């Protein structure tokens, strides 16, 4: 029995080393078709790599925008600049509160915004966070926070990709990586925005469904709010518009609205701004450049009307 237990421990130890070595080799040399649970998203869609590089250098930011792809495709820094506001967009694809928490822990003090606008897309509270974890792990330098996030997400793809990313960070394999600002129809605009060429969307119907929120996402969300409170940063919650057909397919939007109102000022632009499915969107839940223009103008107007931007005005006042 003693021999059995010792051999098991020895085998497990050897297997862990073997596994780690195989992940590194497989990631570097394995054919893409056979990398099912190892997804290296460096430089893939969404320009996360460029955004994170910008976040490391961001300074004097008035408004920081957080959230999913609705954020980095929905808030154009050039429009806000025309109103005199310098913004930074820290959204990423399918970003859930778990990943927002990680990014803020890393970059909030560097960016040091006066106001945070958090785009709360209800579906991000229903996700397991795997896609977004893979995106961030692949495109940022990894530390123990990445491991903590991987443990929270608890998915083999995330573990494998993190292991491989640690190896790439260690060997400085990606130090010469440069991301092309133009990818297919997307163009990266400094400070985190991704502009999509003007395309239109063909209306589609969606079956009715109820959003089922995850408790661990709300736990992360509450920790994010505490982070802001500790730094005395004002947080405004916004829901960016999606196509009315898509929005109406969710049967419990009112429940989510009621939840969000508890946390602070909340504006749901699906009910404030009426856009057209075909003319203002390029797919079911992303605005095209015309839609972004209309949405951003309306957002500034609503925030001003409701005196939400007062921290920016007081910062400009002579003391």
């Amino acid at each position: 029995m003693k021999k059995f237990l010792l051999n098991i421990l020895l085998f497990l130890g050897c297997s862990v080393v073997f596994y780690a070595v195989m992940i590194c080799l497989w990631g570097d040399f394995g054919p893409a078709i056979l990398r099912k649970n190892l997804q290296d998203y460096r430089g893939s869609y969404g320009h996360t790599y460029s955004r994170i590089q910008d976040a490391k250098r961001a300074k004097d930011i008035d408004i920081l925008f957080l959230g999913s792809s609705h954020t980095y495709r929905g808030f154009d820094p050039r429009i806000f600049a025309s109103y005199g506001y310098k913004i930074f967009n820290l959204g990423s694809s399918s970003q859930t509160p778990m990943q927002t928490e990680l990014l803020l822990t890393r970059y909030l003090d560097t960016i040091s915004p006066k106001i945070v606008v958090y785009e709360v897309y209800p579906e991000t509270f229903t996700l397991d966070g795997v896609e977004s974890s893979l995106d961030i792990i692949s495109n940022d330098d990894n530390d123990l926070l990445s491991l903590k996030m991987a443990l929270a997400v608890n998915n083999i793809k995330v573990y494998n990709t993190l292991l491989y990313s640690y190896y790439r960070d260690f060997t400085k394999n990606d130090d010469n990586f440069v991301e092309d600002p133009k990818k297919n129809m997307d163009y990266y605009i400094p400070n985190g925005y991704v502009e999509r060429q003007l395309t239109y969307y063909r209306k589609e119907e969606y079956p009715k469904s109820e959003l089922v929120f995850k408790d661990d996402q709300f736990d992360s969300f509450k920790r994010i709010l505490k982070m802001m409170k500790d730094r005395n940063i004002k947080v405004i919650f916004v829901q960016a518009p999606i196509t009315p057909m898509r929005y109406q397919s969710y049967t419990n939007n009112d429940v989510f609205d009621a939840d969000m109102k508890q946390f602070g000022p909340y504006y749901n632009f699906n009910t404030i701004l009426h856009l057209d499915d075909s003319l203002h969107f390029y797919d079911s839940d992303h605005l095209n450049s015309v839609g972004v223009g209309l949405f951003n103008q309306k957002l500034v107007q609503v925030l001003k009307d409701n005196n939400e931007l007062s921290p920016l005005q007081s910062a400009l006042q002579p003391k």
Partner: protein
Amino acid sequence: MLFNSLDFAIFLPIVFLLYWFVANKNYHQQNVLVLVASYYFYGSWDYRFLFLLIFSTLLDYFTGLKMGEAKTLASKRFWFWLSVTVNLGFLGVFKYYNFFISSAAEGLSLFGLQVNYWTLQVILPVGISFYTFHGLSYVIDIYYDRIKAEKNFIDYAVFVSFFPLLVAGPIERATHLLPQLKKERQFNYTKAVDGLRQILWGLFKKIVIADNCASYANSIFNDYDQYSGSTLVLGAVFFAFQIYCDFSGYSDIALGTARLFGIELLRNFAFPYFSRDIAEFWRRWHISLSSWFRDYLYIPLGGSKGGTWQKVRNTFIIFLVSGFWHGANWTFIVWGFLNALYFMPLLLTKQSRVNMETVAQGKYLPTIRELLAMGITFALTLIAWIFFRAESLTHAFGYISGIFSSSLFTIPRFPELTGAAMTLMLVAFFVIFEWFGRERQFAISHLLLNSNRVFRWGFYAFLLFMIGMFMHTEETPFIYFQF
């Protein structure tokens, strides 16, 4: 608690250590520990149905004792039928009530009679078909004086609820398992290592092959009217490997786990897809169920004795009952019927026991004739699996008519072709190992056994890597849990 879950990965080592280090004074203590662990294992799925399991155990235990004590045949018969009726009654209520009532109503509606009926909204208790058959075999064996009634309740309860086999078999016999539970157990290094090897292979089969095949089989079966005939064939192939690797993977984990506790369970699979005819297939597929039906149904009905008509009748009966055992749906009955039909030519020409040995024994490759025979047998089972997988008979017939269309000879097309290609590569990798290990208990049981430890451990570590790289990322229950 699933075998492929983190919970089980924690549960198993704890029970193993307690079994060999704490409860190791005598086998009584070990049996008590195993019983508590087994009830915890079952209760973690739904504790309410634990009462059903305990009731079923108590019923068979007491009726067994009463039959043993019976002075007259009438008294013995009374207790026997009480046990059989109550056991089948539970199975009938939980598994078949809705099927019978809705089928009867639909039948009457054909004659213009509309009947208002009510169905039960019950959850099917996991493993009910398996532990009911355990209990039934026990009381039948006592009735026919093959065994004596077990006096120790704990030992009997472990026989019924031993956690590795509790929810999906193998269906054990009292004559095989009870004697093992009633003697001292010595830890055997070789058997324990072999058990771990079998668990590893079972996990690979389940979470790499079966679960990956499942996602493609599901998408093709769910939208079968969108796909070409060739894609539908591919869908059926995916399902064939899903069901085989899911169920035989479960059995491997069960057998391997039991071996860690010094218990040998009945073998359940013997490389069925390398069968040269359907009779051989049924000697290699779900062996514990096939042999249960053979011993407790086919032989009492007269078996292969008597005239041709009796043999044909008995064969149809066991295949139809076997189909019905799988679930309350006409699709399972047609699946059973189809297998009986496949069996008929072999039965009528007395060829059903021709292929008793493993195919191409002692050789690397089969002959062309053997290859052809295996191909035909696989194709026949593939058609039968379509009924097994389909939601309804309409679904199954629609699927089959989709296959036999002009698009049968086109290149298969469906979304995620890359993922499907990867899964086919994994299936090919798996089939190669199965082929070269076909003369063993399980495919990798003797692989590299005489090689240096570095190669041997390297291979096991490589399998672990394959699991990590290709496993399906969501925990998926075993198919046979629903039966």
